[in-house]
């Protein structure tokens, strides 16, 4: 979690936008895109840049789901829990990931290898249930199929004792 944050990079992202409050969201999105999370130093820099209280930036960073304040794992499983995926069994997939990797939605494994989050709807309802591993879409995932997917990404072969 002590990833080295390059301040130069951060300020080059800031400088893509005029220093106005209306661009806070856009700046945060670009930082999230770059680092896969919002580093603390980044939030303070935004606050200084647009001249807004840090508390306002923090409110926004915790309000919008697109942002994470902690780094994600090397492989981030996004399990779609849109309605179509839900009625076709996304809950089981979430439980299976928890069982095999010991992480609940929003959590990351201790070795920073895997994280899991649920997303509302990816608009790929015809492929339900859907799991996205980093950018790769896995359609029509079953409770046994997810175990194979975890293995493909280097996950453990056996479920952890629970």
């Amino acid at each position, binding site marked *: 979690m002590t990833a080295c944050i390059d301040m130069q990079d951060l300020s080059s992202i800031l400088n893509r936008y005029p220093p106005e409050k209306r661009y806070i969201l856009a700046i945060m999105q670009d930082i999230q895109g770059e680092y896969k999370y919002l580093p603390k130093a980044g939030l303070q820099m935004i606050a200084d840049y647009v001249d807004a209280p840090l508390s306002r930036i923090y409110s926004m960073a915790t309000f919008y789901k697109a*942002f994470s304040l902690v780094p994600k794992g090397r492989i981030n499983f996004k399990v779609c829990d849109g309605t179509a995926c839900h009625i*076709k069994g996304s809950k089981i997939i979430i439980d299976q990931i928890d069982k095999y990797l010991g992480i609940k939605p929003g959590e990351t494994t201790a070795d920073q290898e895997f994280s899991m989050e649920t997303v509302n709807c*990816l608009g790929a*309802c015809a492929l339900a249930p859907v799991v996205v591993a980093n950018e790769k879409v896995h*359609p029509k995932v079953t409770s046994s199929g997810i175990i194979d997917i975890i293995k493909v990404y280097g996950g453990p072969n056996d479920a952890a004792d629970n």
Partner: protein
Amino acid sequence: MPQIIEAGKKMILVCCGTGCLANGSTDVYQELQQQLANHDVTVSTYTKATGCNGWCEKGPLVKIMPDDITYCQVAAKDVGEIVAKTIAKGELINRLLYRDPKTKQRVKSHHQIDFYKKQHKVALRNIGEIDPASIDDYISRDGYQALNKVLQAMTPGLVVEEIIKSGLRGRGGGGFPTGQKWKACADVESSLRYIICNGDEGDPGAFMDRSIMEGDPHTVIEGMIIGAYAVGATAGFIYVRDEYSLAVKNLGIAIDDARQKGYLGENILGSPLSFDIEIVRGGGAFVCGEETALMASIEGNVGEPRDKYVFPTEKGLWGQPTVINNVETWANVPVIINGGAEAWASIGTEGSKGTKVFSLVGKVINTGLVEVPMGTTLREIIYEIGGGILNKRKFKAVQTGGPSGGCIPAEMLDMAVDFDSLTEAGSMMGSGGLIVMDDHTCMVEIARYYVNFLAGESCGKCTPCREGLKAMLEILNNFCQGKGSDADLQFLTDISETMQMMSLCALGRTAANPVLSTLRYFKDEYLAHIHDQHCPAGVCRDLTEFYIDPEPCTGCGLCSEHCPVEAVSGAKKEAHVIDPAICIRCGECRNQCKFDAVMTR
């Protein structure tokens, strides 16, 4: 509308909507381009990546024009054969054609397929036919003609009148008359007005706006420019979910192209109208679909709504008069202007004119986007277009309107769908999600699902919504575990009523709909959970035990093969048995069983 195909050429359209992309359409597209470049085909060809054709179930789809051939579920390995046979020699490849499940016949053109036959495309008219990144493709299909028409022949007042006459109602949720909104905004004294396109499509199970922004971005832009002319706005914003990266990209290209052609910017097409559009990426908050929350978000704040006692048309973005409509609404505007309000309004019902796009998903055979005239019955949509329920199961309910909507039972399948009939049934149109549920769907669990969704998506500003959802979720979680009482059921109703009456925004006021509608039509199921600790659908895991009925079981072994925990055992061709101590109740065995042998108790 005529298909514009360059003379003497074959046009190959590869669907690159989200569904097809996930099924590998990029590979198909690249393989096609590569092979066509290398193969010495005597026919000249060109390939286009189009937006979503709607029929995601059968993707990736490849259409070959002018022969009007549609191939389904095409893989990169099929490309060689397509080029060698169909492109070079005009031969059909039977196995890639759709097989009609009723007639068992292969079907050549998508126009002959039930899924498309019943549809009437207005908002989706160009999608799947054009390359969304090409403004010329859009122009070749009457694009920007409506803008020309208003600038040359109509006063702003006349444009507003035309929209009022069409009866167009907002396609994003509430169904407010669009023309009235425009008039209200135009009537406010102000030197600065804004136009917003709400593309923060958040209803889980709805993706029509995504499809339009990705597949036909110019229709949205043209609609907005016409709106800007009508109300006198100088700046516009398109607020898009950031998750929709392809939509953001295609809209960006379209805005640049439109600027270059003089449709955006100073003095549009030589007229006094100056107007430009900016894209704002949303941050992932369902509540930002609510217009005042969306505006707060554009302004650089937390997306919390405010009381709308003063409408946004009077005090909206940065306190200025603002018109906000959703993607599908804007997409209809050029059509209304081009063909006239009367022609547009000739379809639909008395109170709801035009067509509506639905995303038909869930336990239905043909999932995807369908556009039908308002007033089409649920039965037509689900059985004729959708092809009926998956695995020949029994239809139980259809959920409409997303988390603000409700569940409609089988008795109401013949209901003609429009804004008013859905509201009367205790649901709503919302953005047009239609989620089909079969008898393996538990309605208490579905209510719990929506309440859980909203508990995470409520902004948390007002008490009834925040605290109400928290309490409702606890009660419903208990029900799903067989805990709870009649008093809880009463309290659930009290909370629902309070939320409807007192919540700040539409999200909170409609948040109880999934609970109230399931209570109204499926109360028995609630009582079974509370009184008998039984989940009739076999979904709630604490109340369900799976077992195999040895009578119908053929011992095919499919269930044990798919069981993730090896809880099913049995010799080949002999009845299998589930060990309840090992079973995690995921239901995969029941999904797999072809003989209805897996039962619950």
